């Protein structure tokens, strides 16, 4: 299916369009956060702590008087940066390892598959709780953790797709023509399998956003003075008895981002690779 037709299908899908609008708004708010923020997100004003929403502070203030609206905007930057980076790195390294597993010697395939399964057997949150304190947390550690636990997923998908393609007639024909394995893989198999993987990756963006927020909520993710929706939620939880707007401020963008990217991903999948939809 051509890109133009796919794009038309995407725009005709109401949920897809809704997702596209939400995702676009979130990306724009993150990119233009310095322009949209009313305050320095790290500026402390304890005298104005836990203020309700007002003209001066649209979403109120937190426990040390920081402007929540500004922190939500900058939190979006972190969420999107982590999610997009994690997606790109996971697809790249996962795809590479999957390709090596599929085309390499049998023993290497076994070794890699065993490694993938071992890593995937650990829940990411548990790993974060164990590794975060050891390495001190922070965005880099968080990103490393998300990438390390996602690589096996993409590697598995890539490996299966490449193995399936490797026995296709056109590959046999290319081999018969004397083309090398690596060249066949990179120039002919990869273009055939990368599309579905990219669509799967787009659907993982909300999962990464949620993971970043969840791990930061638990205190082992993003570190102050950087901000994160998960950190805002954590603060909000502590004061939920008298300042519910903090939880709302941290939770709402998280919900919108998750919905937006999920709808968009599903619409992309339906538009560009309906086979994935059928597989459910």
């Amino acid at each position, binding site marked *: 299916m051509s890109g133009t037709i796919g794009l038309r299908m995407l725009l005709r899908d109401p949920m897809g369009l809704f997702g596209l609008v939400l995702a676009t708004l979130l990306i724009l708010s993150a990119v233009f956060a310095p322009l949209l923020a009313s305050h320095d997100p*790290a500026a*402390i004003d*304890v*005298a104005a*702590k836990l203020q309700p929403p007002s003209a001066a502070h649209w979403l109120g203030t937190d*426990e*040390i008087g920081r402007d929540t609206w500004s922190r939500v905007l900058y939190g979006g930057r972190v969420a999107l940066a982590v999610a997009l980076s994690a997606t790109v790195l996971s697809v790249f390294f996962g795809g590479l390892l999957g390709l090596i597993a599929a085309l390499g010697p049998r023993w290497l395939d076994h070794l890699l598959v065993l490694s993938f399964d071992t890593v995937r057997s650990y829940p990411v949150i548990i790993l974060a709780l164990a590794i975060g*304190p050891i390495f*001190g*947390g922070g965005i880099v550690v968080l990103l490393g953790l998300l990438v390390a636990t996602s690589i096996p997923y993409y590697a598995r998908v890539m490996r299966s797709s490449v193995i399936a393609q490797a026995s296709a007639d056109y590959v046999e024909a290319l081999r018969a023509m004397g083309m090398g394995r690596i060249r066949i893989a990179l120039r002919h198999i990869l273009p055939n399998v990368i599309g579905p993987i990219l669509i799967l990756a787009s659907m993982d963006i909300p999962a990464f956003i949620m993971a970043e927020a969840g791990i930061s*909520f*638990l*205190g082992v993710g993003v*570190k*102050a*003075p950087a901000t994160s929706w998960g950190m805002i939620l*954590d*603060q909000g*939880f*502590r004061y*939920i*008895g*008298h300042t519910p707007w903090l939880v709302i401020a941290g939770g709402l963008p998280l919900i919108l981002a998750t919905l937006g990217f999920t709808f968009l991903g599903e619409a992309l999948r339906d538009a560009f690779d309906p086979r994935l939809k059928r597989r459910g």
Partner: protein
Amino acid sequence: MIAKLSALVLCLALPVHAETLRIAIPSDPAYVDPAYFGSTSEFYLIDNLYPRLAKYAPGDAWKWELDAAKSVDLSDPQNIKFELKPGLIWSGGFGELTAEDVKYSYERHLNPDLGSGIIAEFKLLDNVEVTGKYTGIIHLKAPSASFWTATMVFTTGAIISKAAAEAAGGYFEAVPTATIGPYKMKSFEPGMKIVLDRDQGWTGTPGAFDEIELIPIADDNGATIAFEAGELDFTTLNALDFDMLSTNPPKGGVVKLAQSVDPFWLGITETAPALQDIRVRQAIQLAVDVPAILSAKSNGKAVQATGLAAPGTLGARTTPPMARDLERAKALIAEAGAEGTTVRLDFVSTASDGSNATAQIIQANLAEIGLVVELNGQDEGTFWSIDSIRGTDPQLHLKSWFGNPDALYIMQYFTREQIKSWNWEALQNDEYEALVDQARTTIDEGARSNIYQRMQEIMEASGDFLFISHEAYTVLSRDTMEAAYLPDGRPVFAVFRLK
């Protein structure tokens, strides 16, 4: 997260008993042995399950009263004579409390093989002479007043059963096999609850409750929800909750603000490479906005501290608290050439005690003078036990210690021999160490007060300490009972009564 979920699960799962007192504790105890205690839960249990010769009495003022002792003769401050009440029977079939138990309980702390965490408190102890089944003399190496007030009547003075301890291998873990009092340990389900029930061998005033359940709930929200749901009868919360709860108390709840003697301070390790220059340490002292911390951490319920001795206690300094001076701090950093230096701030990242807010304020304050602070929040167990923090590389650390109305209890730990243990600040001062010894053996209160004040001056001048406050707590209890507290709000639940 687990704590938050478990609190909600507890609300739904716990059965209601008409004569069961349910108290929230922050965590499970690890050691209910006076030699190793450290956490709040362990304090609670040791205070309520073990006898002492005398102990601080519930009330608004720090006064001691006889406990297991029938009489105590303090007329000779080097040789304290005592006589035990007869007929105090250890639970678990370990017989009657005798002077041999007292001797064993105190002298064991001097045994280096035990590794007692309170060895400093017993530094003056020479031996305990048993002169009869119930009588004995505590011989000190020198006359001392603080040995009584800082050690004997506090948690550290707990007496354990010699027979039970030896049967248990020399120390107790989370479940003591022998206690004396209205209640004894019945069961311990880690993460769920500790159950105490009536000790049938107790001949004193019986406890008012059939059972006492101590339920670990780590965060204040969970504890408040559990109280509102009727599943808790007593909990201690952060002072931040006081305004909200006092204006809108939970149904059947009595709200009280307690000013503790627990000091809270920023430790600045003088041996850390980034902090070896005293100008950097002094700059940190001057840059931190303590009033802002107090507002964020306790809604202003705690007052700015001038030292480790709490206001109104012996040795409390009357000098004004250190004032913020950003310009002077910047100048000191410039003189030291320390702009851009990175330091790590370790702290206990508890959900509801305001420590996260405190750490972030310090981070922002120090950024103003050009220092980069990496925050390292940890759970309580990791913070207090991890070797890298305890022994090798502490830098900045936020600490809150259980206090004592006699501040020597804490101040005696900042000596060279404690550097790998409790003196994380690595304070090394000859005058200070001499004053510790002097304080231990000074009888006159006025003279002792002067010594304590001088010790705190040295601490502050070293640049190793930024005194922040003494903790304030919100205490929430059920109106159907009369709760008993020490003057700092610590519950003496063994004597809680039903109205």
